[in-house]
C-alpha cells in the first residue's frame, strides 16, 4: 500500500490574524555567507601566494563547498545551512569571479 503523506498542520487562526511565523531563514543566509567568506579567503590567499591557478586549485573551493553542502543536506537540522553553502557556489562565482567583461583580476589591494 502506498504511504500517505503527512497530514496538513491545523490552522487555528481567526480571520484577521497574522500568518504563522516562517521557519528561520538565518541558517540558509549563514550558509551563503559562510560560503562567500570561505571562497573569498581561499582565492585571495591563493592569489597572494602567487599560486598557479590551474584547474584543480581553481575548483578547490567549489568542490569543498559542494561536498560539505551535500553532506549537511542529509541532516534535517542542518539542511538549510547546507543548501545555503551550495547556493553560495553560484553567488560567489557571480560576484567574485565573473566581472561584466572577461577580466580575471584580483579586485582587492592594500593601499597602505
Amino acid at each position, binding site marked *: 500500500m502506498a504511504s500517505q503523506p503527512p497530514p496538513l498542520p491545523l490552522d487555528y487562526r481567526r480571520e484577521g490574524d497574522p500568518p504563522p511565523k516562517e521557519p528561520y531563514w538565518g541558517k540558509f543566509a549563514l550558509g551563503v555567507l559562510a560560503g562567500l567568506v570561505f571562497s573569498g579567503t581561499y582565492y585571495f590567499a591563493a592569489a597572494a601566494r602567487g599560486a598557479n591557478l590551474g584547474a584543480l586549485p*581553481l575548483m578547490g573551493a567549489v568542490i569543498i563547498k559542494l561536498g560539505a553542502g551535500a553532506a549537511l543536506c542529509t541532516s534535517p537540522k542542518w539542511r538549510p545551512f547546507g543548501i545555503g553553502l551550495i547556493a553560495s557556489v553560484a553567488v560567489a562565482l557571480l*560576484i567574485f569571479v565573473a566581472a561584466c567583461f572577461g577580466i580575471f583580476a584580483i579586485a582587492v589591494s592594500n593601499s597602505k
Partner: protein
Amino acid sequence: MQFPHYFHLFGWRVHPHIVLELIGYSGGFQIYLHLRRRDVWPRAAVPFEQNLWLIVGCVFGALFGAKALAFVESINLYRDALGDPRSWLGGKTIVGGLLGGWVGVEIVKRIFRIRNSTGDLFVFPLIFGIAVGRIGCFLTGLPDHTYGVHSNLPWAVDFGDGPRHPTQLYEILFLIDWGIVLAVVFRRLKPSNGVLFRLLLLGYLLFRFFVEFIKPRYNPYLGLSAIQLACALGAGVCLVQLIGKGRNKDHGQPTAAAAA
C-alpha cells in the same frame, strides 16, 4: 571623477563591482524575505525547503545563462583567448542571468511538481538588485564594457576616452520607473499570479533591446547582437504567456504542500 572608482574600506582598496553586487544581492534577499513575511503574494509562496531549492536553481541558472550569453555576445573577442582558462571565468550579462535564472527555477519546479507561479515575489528584489549592481557597472567604467557609444549630449559621461552615453544610469532610471508602474499595477489592478513577473521581464527585455542600439556591440545576427536576440526571444515568451494568462484567468488555487 576617475574610473574605476574604488572604495577604500578599512585601509583596503575594493573594486566597486564587488561592493555594489554584495549590497544588491543581500538587499534584494532582505526585500524578498520582507515580502514573504508580509504575505503579499500568498499564491507565489511555496514551502520553506522547496523555496530554498528554488533559490539554488535560480542562482545556478542565472550563473549559466549570464556566462553563456556573455560568451556568445562577445565571441569575436573571446575566440582569441579560448586557450586561457581565465577567459572562461569572466564575463556575464544581466539578460542572460534573468533568462537563465527563470529556466533554473522552472527546472526545480518540475522536480518538486510545483505548479503555481512563483516569480511575483522576485519582482521588487530583482529591480533593487539590478539597479544597485548597475551602479557598480557605472563606477567600473571602461573595463566593464557596459557603457554607451560616444555622445555630445550634455549628460554624457567621460569614462576616460571621451563622453559617452551613461547607459548604466539610463537602466537604473528605467528600473525605478518600471518598478513604480508595476507597484501601481499591483495595487490597482490586482493581477493574477505570475503576471507581475512577466511584466517585469517584458519591460526590461524591451528596454535592453532598444538601449543596445546605443552601445558598442558585435552584431552579426541580421544586424542584431546576441543580447538583442535573447531579449527578443525572452520578450516574445513573456508576451505569449501574458496573453495566455489573460485568456485563462489564473485563480491560483494553492497546492496542498503550499499550505504546510
